[in-house]
């Protein structure tokens, strides 16, 4: 029973990582850049949910929608102000800029919301499911996180395969130059990617803080890094890969903590990542791209 509970806890944590990882993987897949500020957009999203829900009294779903709009606006403006001018720059310059944006968001949140952590009221009101006489409990937050992350993966996959803008994203990810020649508006497509990624960040923020209800200006930092690992683990750029990577990282982290060592749990997560990358450098579902010389 203990093992089953731990497994469920792992899947719960993993599905939150998965939603965060989707944001990383979309932006990387299409814009070919690592948006390290993603974790902090999550934190801002969670604050907006907190303000709209707990402070302004909106119902949870409305609060999450407000946060999605706010994060979309934030994500698109970050892209316009910080990343777009660097479209032709080296990837290192963009990476450093992303880290800068990350610290900027953390500190701006510190100024606006203060340094005292707040207790986040869960947006989930689904009752917990009890199995085996209450020995295994699946909380409402857990089932919601799993269902929501599945819905997002399916919806995103369909969006990319079936819609015109989705196919434009695919084209931009394959070859920016060629896509532009074929009439795809590359800049608008990249903005759309950021918009979707940031809206997902708001959902991730609501899920993350519902499950772990302490919210401060660094709330998004560590989950952001773990989710980035998950995206790389699953094969960065691949949407189902982010889902699989997220769940696996969550399960490894919780099982490692439960059965090996609470202190080494993080080391185990990153150790597994190194092992996977040694044997499969593009991640589990990553495509092998042969570079033309």
């Amino acid at each position, binding site marked *: 029973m203990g093992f089953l509970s731990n497994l469920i806890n792992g899947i719960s944590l993993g599905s939150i990582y998965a939603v965060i990882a989707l944001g990383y993987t979309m932006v990387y897949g299409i814009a070919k850049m690592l948006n390290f500020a993603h974790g902090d957009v999550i934190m801002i999203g969670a604050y907006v949910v907190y303000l709209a829900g707990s402070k302004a009294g909106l119902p949870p779903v409305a609060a999450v929608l407000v946060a999605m709009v706010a994060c979309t606006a934030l994500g698109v403006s970050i892209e316009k102000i910080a990343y777009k001018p660097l479209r032709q720059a080296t990837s290192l310059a963009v990476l450093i800029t992303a880290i800068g944006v990350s610290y900027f968001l953390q500190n701006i949140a510190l100024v606006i919301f203060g340094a005292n952590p707040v207790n986040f009221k869960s947006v989930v009101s689904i009752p917990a499911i*009890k199995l085996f006489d209450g020995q295994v*409990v699946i909380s409402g*937050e857990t089932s919601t996180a799993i269902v929501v992350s599945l819905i997002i993966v399916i919806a995103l996959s369909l969006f990319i395969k079936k819609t015109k803008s989705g196919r434009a994203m695919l084209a931009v990810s394959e070859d920016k130059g060629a896509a532009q020649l074929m009439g795809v508006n590359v800049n608008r497509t990249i903005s759309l990617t950021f918009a979707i990624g940031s809206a997902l960040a708001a959902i991730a923020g609501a899920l993350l803080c519902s499950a*772990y209800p302490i919210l401060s200006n660094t709330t998004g930092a*560590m989950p952001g890094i773990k989710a980035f690992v998950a995206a790389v683990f699953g094969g960065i750029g691949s949407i189902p890969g982010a889902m699989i990577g997220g769940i696996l990282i969550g399960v490894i982290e919780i099982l490692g*903590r*439960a059965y090996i060592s*609470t*202190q080494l*749990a993080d080391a185990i997560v990153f150790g597994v990542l190194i092992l996977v990358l040694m044997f499969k450098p593009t991640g589990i579902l990553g495509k092998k791209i042969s570079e033309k010389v």
Partner: protein
Amino acid sequence: MKKFIALLLATLMIAGCFAACGGEETPENKANEIVIGVQGPLTGSAAQYGIAVANAAKLAADEINAAGGINGTTLKVVTADDEADPGDKAVSAYNSLKDQGMQIFLGTVTTGSGLAVIDQTAADNMFQLTPSASGDDIIEAGDNCFQICFTDSNQGSRSAQYIAENNVATKVAVIYDSSDAYSTGIYNNFKAEAANRGIELVAEQSFTKDSKSDFSAQIQACKTAGAELVFLPIYYTEASLILGAAKAADYAPKFFGCDGLDGLLAIEGFDTSLAEGVMLLTPFAADATDDATQAFVSAYKAAYNNEIPNQFAADAYDGVKILAKLIEENNITADMTAAEICEILKAAICAEGFEFYGLTGAGAALTWDASGAVSKDPAAVIIENGAYKAL
């Protein structure tokens, strides 16, 4: 245009340098006042402690000054924020206090920050009276540092003693922060005393400062091991998450903590029903009926927005009163340097016959020995109906 902006920025930078130089004048202590420096987390995840200490210290100083001061000298409290950081932030907070003319150091509030500055306070020969940094090694570095709170070894062993003597539980689990000196210190002493007292430690779980949001695995381990009581020698922010994780896992053991749990009920937005029945060791309960406590609580509430003071506030209030008593008895004057004051006070506080009756001594006198430790017994309180109640 770009050149113009560059030039402008360069000019501003140079101007900034001059401004900084101008600010570095040594503050002259023109008024006849002794400056007490308070250092603690005024922001961050342990902010309630630092704010309580700063507030109570100012309250005590204001009361003393309003009554005419000490031998005509008034007290001035200056504060600096270390965010409970165990590194550079603690050192710069201490330095900023020295820049503000500190003559006596009432700090630090947390053990981690304390360990970062004790070598420096010893080297400066700065008299240090810490309200709440309870680590055993805080007072070991130099002979200039004294505690108002009981030490971690005391807290750890007293917790085990209390649990055993009152038959609270026999199967006990611990969740502690292995990256924090305070938490690990109490855990080690608890473990040693538990073995002596026949308490069975069925699960020993930990977390680190990088992974302190998900506690489901630790709670699951405690639940599987069948622990009747979970001992939490940690701070209140993480404790609130652990209580939530236990509820999510449908696990309802008793919870027992130390002074770090104080503040749990005051977290913004926290569902206090989660904390119902949580027991903790503290030298101070705001609902005690003695006159001194009642007077302090009502003065504190009147001064600070109707907030109920916690034990950190009480420790700090006692701290300033102890300093006032020492200043008065030893004729300390405002023109003495920090080192001169320290030489006198560190002998006086542990001298035969010096004792102090305050809020945190449970009616008994507080005395100090040369090691810096205070003689004091922690008492247990339980959280009932969202308030602390003495046991």
